């Protein structure tokens, strides 16, 4: 239960970090997923690039109605942000379920995204919110949508020499309401299933599922049904309809229904 040896670097800027990242390196953010993997020796990087002293990656800003979250922003900071509670309540509702206060104090928004666990809360909420992911490398910058960013279980589109620097979240439709509901066996454990729901007036609805595939899953058909006036039960059945396991389908249906109803309340 001790990591294998590695070289360690603690750059002070994004440029310095990008100069260090490469094939046998790993970027260390909050460490709440990576350090367990190091301790188990599932991950054995030659070089660990510690981002915790790159202060330019830690910010929450709202400009032009858009939310900009620096990749190193702690989950606890997101949880306590007045701007987030007021304008993107879904993120605050979701992050409360992520681990415990003792892990949210270190765990980061960017780290959770890059770790790409399909049962993690923030990737599902960010998928429902149509977030965009800004990546940097010595080769240049690129911006990905959530379906482009989340590739498969524990695999994001971030290349070994790339760094996720910012998550950008567009404004919610005026008057939209949100809810995040999940089922976990014990409090703070990884969730089994869950749903993030945005209910806008008009056609601004979004439903994203947790634990329904190898990435967060958008339920587009159910979203369209909701917009066309379907009830919570009908939309929830559509959202979970593709799940083949009967228990998981029933559980997800209930969670989506509850999230839709809470977002309407």
């Amino acid at each position, binding site marked *: 239960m*001790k990591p*294998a*040896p590695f070289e360690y670097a603690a750059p002070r800027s994004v440029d310095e970090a990008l100069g260090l990242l490469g094939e046998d390196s790993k970027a260390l953010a909050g460490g709440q997923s990576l350090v367990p993997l190091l*301790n188990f020796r599932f991950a054995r990087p030659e070089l660990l690039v*510690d981002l915790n002293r790159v202060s330019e990656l830690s910010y929450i800003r709202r400009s032009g109605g858009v939310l900009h979250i620096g990749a190193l922003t702690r989950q606890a900071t997101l949880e306590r942000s007045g701007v987030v509670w007021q304008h993107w309540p879904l993120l605050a509702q979701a992050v409360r379920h992520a681990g*415990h*206060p*003792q892990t949210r104090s*270190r765990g980061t928004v960017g780290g959770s995204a890059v770790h790409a666990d399909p049962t993690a809360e923030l990737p599902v909420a960010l998928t429902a919110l149509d977030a965009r992911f800004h990546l940097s490398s010595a080769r240049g910058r690129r911006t990905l949508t959530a379906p482009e960013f989340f590739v498969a279980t524990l695999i994001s589109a971030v290349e070994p020499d790339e760094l996720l620097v910012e998550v950008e979240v567009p404004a919610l439709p005026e008057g939209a309401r949100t809810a995040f509901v999940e089922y976990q066996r014990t409090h703070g454990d990884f969730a089994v299933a869950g749903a993030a729901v945005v209910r806008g007036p008009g056609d601004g609805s979004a439903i994203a599922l947790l634990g329904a595939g190898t990435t967060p899953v958008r339920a587009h058909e159910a979203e369209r049904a909701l917009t066309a006036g379907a009830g919570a039960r009908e939309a929830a059945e559509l959202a979970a309809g593709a799940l083949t396991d009967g228990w998981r389908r029933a559980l997800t249906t209930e969670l989506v229904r509850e999230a839709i109803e809470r977002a309407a309340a």
Partner: protein
Amino acid sequence: MRIGVEINGTLYQGEVEPRTLLSDFIRHQAGLHGTRVGCEHGVCGACTVQLDGEPIRSCLMLAVQANGRAVRTVEGLAPDGELQPLQRAFHEKHALQCGFCTSGFLMSLEPFLRDHPEAGEDEIREALAGNLCRCTGYEAIVEAVKSAAEEMR
């Protein structure tokens, strides 16, 4: 690498490998054995300490990351031997059986009570969900936290 970490107001310096966990630095190099090492992958909470007043898992942080930072361990709760209300309540309500998990509970709950002095039982139970007691002595722990919260109000 040579590092210096302030723990409970005292500077501890030492030579560590980059892979040395903060929990091991606290126990082996600083010689502070109140911090316990349980699962070593962030689940059990026994190794909880405070970094800048916030509870963290010391098994999920490298010692080199704490270089130049201030850490507080359970030994820092009663530096002069006088127990804090929360510690007294644990004693009075018999909120420990084998005692292995106790320091982790204290280091998690101390900042929680500071930030949520009006916490009710549901909030208290949620706040201690990140710490496991393998003796399953949770009832007495919840009683102790309620009693400490009342005393601190």
